[in-house]
């Protein structure tokens, strides 16, 4: 096996390997790479927005293009950058952390990835096919039902594809964690990142159907002449807002909980101390998830739901600050008295605490229903959610990437560059978004193409744009770091940080395709650390060396996805000319045909034989 992998493969073979793989580690890396690509796209869009808002009455881009930019920036960053990278980390790390050889449904795992990727491609193709969606990432009706052209259609179909992929991924993680935990891995011995993966997956399971339903209604309204959101025909446009936010608020917790999990892994490792208040952490995560479903109307406080509904949702929203506070104090207490080592992963984690706390504080301000009439739809909201999403989720992603890079790609990122990138990005981040709070309080509305001069908004906007350029520089240094590391970096050992506590550090970096030669016996929380404290440098195996059963790769996820992809184009263009419906039939034929093959063809996987395993070095 290792012989084969060291031999040089042709490009075609490598490509085929990636198209057909069902290995959770490879899929994890693919999620991360694809997510990073979309992150760069979204970043360029952000930069264009900031250049437009650099000075009063700027005409760098037209008003219409500006609307496309803000819509695509938000949609890309949330659905195609932040979520996939998190899903990628979960995919790559979670099975290792619970001592499993793969996820429960490797085939579905691959299907989820391809649906996400083609959804993202679909959305971005709109740039070349007559214009991107321009109704905001929230696509409020009736703006979105009346937006001319096909832009919003691409939004609907792209999100529908990738949303299906995300649902599949979430269900897969749930089943994996419920059924595939290794010997001795009880629930309360699971690392916090596994816990947050579990809870974020529950959120995906319950939140995404609301989006799916909303998108279907929007699709029917736009493409098939229905009137769910058309007030003139007896529809109701507020229903979209409810459906979107019933999904949307849990979505922001889908983004932040895994990041919480990442920090909960990093602080103990680099403080050389166990996580403070493990069970309260688990409890707080559940509380956040539970409350997270009962607060969506805080995005609609100015819609006119009435004082009773507004008060209920305001109080429920503020309640979330309590479990979040528990977590913040637990992280601080974890570091308290520990022997702290500050490297890039730790820097991002440390920077997260104050940044996210500011975001949480402005969140509570926004949740004050009466005051929200002043804040709503101003730059104050933009300031709030960038403090939580960049300062929380993105810092978490970057911390996690530095921390797990050796596990994912077998090399340790360059520390010096990591620190420089951090500082430039960190300063840029606060420059960009801190002033936006004040711009908002001074009355600058969000999503406006231009602002007038001499209204006290000029300096703030300039500062904000300068900050955006600093963040860009930080990102570029990070990318250079990645390139440098993959060329020059030295191969990492299994436990490159030396203080790894969880199971993923007990296997080589990157791990073999079967993860664990013998499944390890878990004797408590921080399983690997326990073994180290007992003087073992390896996990105690829970089984003798036996043949390992592996799933076969398959191209069917790709063909299925391509089928749905083609059908989506059919749906979009049949509005102009019914003959496009042919694409719908062709697409569904391909997709359903692939499903049929999958159902009828027995696939029992293969075995890696004991003898081959023995031959391999540890």
């Amino acid at each position, binding site marked *: 096996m290792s012989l084969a992998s060291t031999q040089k493969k042709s490009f075609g073979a490598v490509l085929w390997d990636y198209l057909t793989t069902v290995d959770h580690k490879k899929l994890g890396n693919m999620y991360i790479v694809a997510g990073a690509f979309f992150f760069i796209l979204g970043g360029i869009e952000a930069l264009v927005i900031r250049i437009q808002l650099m000075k009063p009455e700027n005409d760098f881009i037209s008003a219409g293009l500006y609307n496309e930019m803000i819509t695509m920036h938000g949609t890309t960053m949330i659905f195609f950058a932040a979520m996939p990278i998190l899903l990628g980390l979960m995919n790559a790390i979670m099975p290792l952390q619970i001592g499993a050889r793969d996820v429960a449904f490797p085939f579905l795992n691959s299907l989820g990835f391809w649906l996400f990727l083609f959804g993202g491609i679909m959305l971005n193709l709109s740039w070349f096919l007559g214009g991107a969606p321009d109704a905001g990432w929230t696509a409020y009706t009736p703006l979105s039902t009346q937006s001319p052209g096909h832009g919003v259609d691409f939004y609907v179909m792209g999100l529908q594809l990738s949303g299906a992929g995300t649902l599949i991924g979430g269900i897969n993680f749930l089943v994996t964690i419920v059924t595939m935990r290794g010997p001795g891995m009880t629930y309360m011995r699971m690392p916090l990142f596994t816990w947050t993966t579990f809870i974020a997956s529950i959120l995906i399971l319950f939140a995404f159907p609301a989006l799916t339903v909303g998108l279907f209604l929007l699709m029917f309204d736009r493409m098939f002449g229905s009137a769910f959101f058309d007030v003139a025909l007896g529809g109701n446009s507020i229903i979209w807002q*409810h459906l979107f936010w019933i999904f949307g608020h849990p979505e922001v917790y889908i983004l932040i909980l895994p990041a919480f999990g990442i920090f909960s892994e990093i602080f103990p490792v680099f403080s050389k101390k166990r996580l403070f208040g493990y069970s309260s952490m688990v409890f707080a995560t559940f509380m956040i998830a539970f409350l997270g479903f009962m607060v969506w109307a805080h995005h609609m406080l100015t819609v006119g739901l009435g004082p009773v509904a507004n008060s209920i949702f305001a109080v429920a929203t503020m309640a979330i600050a309590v479990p979040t506070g528990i977590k913040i104090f637990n992280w601080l207490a974890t570091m308290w008295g520990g022997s702290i080592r500050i490297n890039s992963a730790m820097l991002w984690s440390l920077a997260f605490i104050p940044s996210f706390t500011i975001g949480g504080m402005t969140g509570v301000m926004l949740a004050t229903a009466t005051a929200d009439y002043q804040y709503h739809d101003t730059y104050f909201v933009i300031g709030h959610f960038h403090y939580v999403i960049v300062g929380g989720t993105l810092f978490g992603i970057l911390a996690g990437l530095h921390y797990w890079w050796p596990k994912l790609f077998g090399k340790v990122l360059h520390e010096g560059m990591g620190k420089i990138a951090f500082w430039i990005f960190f300063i840029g981040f606060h420059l960009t978004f801190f002033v936006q709070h004040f711009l908002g309080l001074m009355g600058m509305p969000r999503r406006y193409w231009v602002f007038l001069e001499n209204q006290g908004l000029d300096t703030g906007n300039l500062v904000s744009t300068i900050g955006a350029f600093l963040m860009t520089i930080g990102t570029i240094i990070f990318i250079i770091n990645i390139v440098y590391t993959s060329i020059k970096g030295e191969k990492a050992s299994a436990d490159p940080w030396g203080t790894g506590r969880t199971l993923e550090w007990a296997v080589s970096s990157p791990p073999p395709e079967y993860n664990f030669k013998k499944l390890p016996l878990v004797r408590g929380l921080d399983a690997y650390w326990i073994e180290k404290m007992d003087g073992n440098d390896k996990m105690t195996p829970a089984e003798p060396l036996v043949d390992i059963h592996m799933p076969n790769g398959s191209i069917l996820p790709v063909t299925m996805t391509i089928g749905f992809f083609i059908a989506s184009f059919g749906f979009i263009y049949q509005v102009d000319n019914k003959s496009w419906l042919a694409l719908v039939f062709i697409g569904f034929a391909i997709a359903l045909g692939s499903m049929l093959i999958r159902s009828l063809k027995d696939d029992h996987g293969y075995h890696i034989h004991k003898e081959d395993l023995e031959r391999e070095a540890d």
Partner: protein
Amino acid sequence: MTDNTNINKINSYENTRRKEEMKHQVITFVLMIAFTLIAFLVVAAELSRTFVIPFILLLAVVQVGFQFYYFMHMKDKGHEIISSLIFGGIWIAAVTVLTFTTIIWW
């Protein structure tokens, strides 16, 4: 010898357990059919709507319960996570329906 009796004991325990199980299944099955019949009957009897609609909904809830607990074995051990997930989902759906029926105006 002792081994054998042990196995016999386990077998007879298994058998009574299976019989019990079968009895439950049949009873629930009969009840399900009865409920369905009752639902049709109350509609046919042309009672007042304010009674019929909540009544049928109640029957439906009980039937879903039977479905989950008896036919889909949620009453058995090892289904705690699954049932909490299902109840979580029901709760969220209920909150959603509640809002849609209360704070959305037409």
